[in-house]
């Protein structure tokens, strides 16, 4: 692995302005502890403390210089009352803390009154906001019982049986999987697993797993973490071309359209990769008259509509 780039002077200043107040307040912490807390090597730390040693305020008489001592592996800094408090948090830093914390609190199983929740309240109050009101993270619905079973399967390398609904094919199946990775992306929770039914690596959405059960069989975990790329159209996926009315333009933002062509009548012609027919059926039924299939998908909406209507005609 390549060595990390040498930090710039502003990067080192940022660290020092945070490190000095902590050393002053903790009167003589060990070098090892300072290095671990501030993610710095001992050599770099000593070099930076030597810099601090020469700093102070005009006219730089000895009583106005900062005093740094390293005695028996412990660090002492004195006369730094102007650096007694760390610099306030920038909006970006406050955001990073609050957003990360709020997201972790949104993960099922989080303790709403635990240390993280208390920390977020305190940080928020320093920032002048209330933590729950100012920033909210919704990670997508996830069945907690399913998540628990998958986590256990991953922790113990045990196979799991899942009852899965394939939205794109409108089909429900029971399959045995080796759970490899659970993560959230784009507002949904996903499982990456080896699927024994399909005989390959598959991606499953957690909210479409109806039930999960731990099996007695072990599996060998993959040697590297699988990719987390969520959507990738493959060249073989069928393409469909639709004309969309202005009201249906949300499709352009919601789905990865491959081509857009503006028409003279205010409509636009889009090309979409469609790997699953039921997915296209729903899209066309939702759009109604606002979409006209130009290539592919002809008659699909009518057939799906007739299938649904059969339920209503019986009564």
């Amino acid at each position, binding site marked *: 692995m390549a060595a990390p780039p040498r930090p710039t002077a502003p990067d080192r200043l940022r660290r020092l302005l945070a490190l000095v107040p902590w050393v002053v307040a903790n009167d003589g912490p060990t070098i090892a502890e300072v290095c671990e807390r501030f993610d710095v090597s001992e050599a770099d730390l000593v070099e930076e403390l030597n810099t601090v040693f020469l700093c102070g305020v005009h006219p730089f008489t000895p009583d106005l210089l900062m005093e740094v001592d390293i005695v028996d592996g412990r660090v002492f800094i004195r006369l730094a009352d102007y650096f007694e408090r760390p*610099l306030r948090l920038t909006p970006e830093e406050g955001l*990073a803390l609050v957003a990360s914390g709020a997201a972790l609190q949104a993960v099922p199983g989080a303790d709403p009154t635990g240390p993280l929740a208390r920390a977020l309240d305190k940080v928020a109050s320093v920032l002048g906001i209330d933590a729950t009101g100012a920033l909210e993270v919704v990670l997508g619905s996830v069945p907690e019982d399913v998540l628990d079973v998958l986590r256990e399967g991953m922790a113990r390398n045990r196979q799991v049986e899942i009852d899965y609904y394939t939205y794109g094919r409108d089909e429900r199946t029971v399959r045995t999987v080796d759970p490899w990775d659970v993560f959230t992306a784009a507002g949904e929770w996903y499982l990456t697993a080896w699927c024994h039914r399909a005989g390959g690596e598959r991606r499953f959405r957690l909210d479409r797993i109806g039930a999960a059960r731990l099996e007695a069989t072990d599996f060998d975990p993959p040697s590297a973490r699988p990719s987390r790329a969520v959507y990738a159209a493959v060249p073989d996926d069928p393409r469909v071309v639709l004309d969309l009315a202005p009201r249906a333009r949300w499709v352009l933002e919601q789905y990865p359209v491959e081509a857009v062509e503006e028409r003279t009548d205010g409509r636009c012609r889009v090309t979409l990769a469609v790997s699953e027919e039921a997915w296209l059926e729903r899209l066309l039924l939702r759009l109604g008259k606002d979409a006209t299939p130009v290539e592919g998908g002809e008659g699909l909406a009518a057939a799906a509509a007739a*299938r649904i209507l059969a339920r209503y005609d019986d009564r």
Partner: protein
Amino acid sequence: MSKLERLLNLTAALLTTRRPLAASEIATRVPGYPSDKVAFRRAFARDKEVLRDMGIPLEVAPVPGADPPVEGYRIAPEQYALRDPGLEPDEVAALHLATVAVRVDGLAGSEALWKLGGAPGERDGEPVAQLPATPELAPLFRAVAERAPAVFGYRGERRTLEPHRLTFARGRWYVEGHDRDRGELRQFRLDRIEGDIEVGEPGSFERPLATRSSQAHAWEIGGHDEAVTATVRVDADQAPWVRRDLGEAAVLTTHGDGSLDVAVEVRNRDAFRSWLIGFLDHAEVLSPVELRDDLVAWLRDQVA
């Protein structure tokens, strides 16, 4: 003399002065600057930029008694310092864990943690979640925190918003607040904001105490339709997620074959229809008659 040393001395000088210091005074009090006037000016301009980029509140004000008048610089200690949040060690550790477990693209939580005393422990764990960040996020967060109005372009119009909160949902960031031009609560998608965001005067408005959660279903919000309770039958193979999504309280009846009758509050009929279509032929509106007819008409229109 290293640049780091000069920056440290400059910060110390500006923090300890009671009155603004003229650039010429800084040149003599802070060691490490070039003696040539032009080179000094260039170096000092760069240093000011570095301090501002770090979030150091550098004040610019006239030097008292200077004739002719001259601009001076200082850092007010009370503006500079972080108020001590009084975090316990387990609370700092929890924050550290959160910044490792959840990555916000392009935003490092580590520097924020240093200011809170740093955190020992693992730094390279696998994140559970990754939140995307757009350039609009930081200025809007500042506007929320400072209760400052935000002015931005949205769909070709200028909007002035009193932002109440940021929400990440369905894979996107939203900002919600009081739209001054429309005189009502509005939600905006961050990725649709056009151009830069201007953040106005801090403390310009009061944030309402509790804002509604954005976890409401689409058919419950945003519509202008009179609220009506619909009963929907859902087949057994769709029952598990419907039960989870709507909650037990919505379930009216569980039939012997595993199908469910659920009650939903509908305020937005278009969104309700869209939700139903998601089930294809695995669900049916039982009542009221007008919602049933609504769907049937919509579908007949597509068979014809």
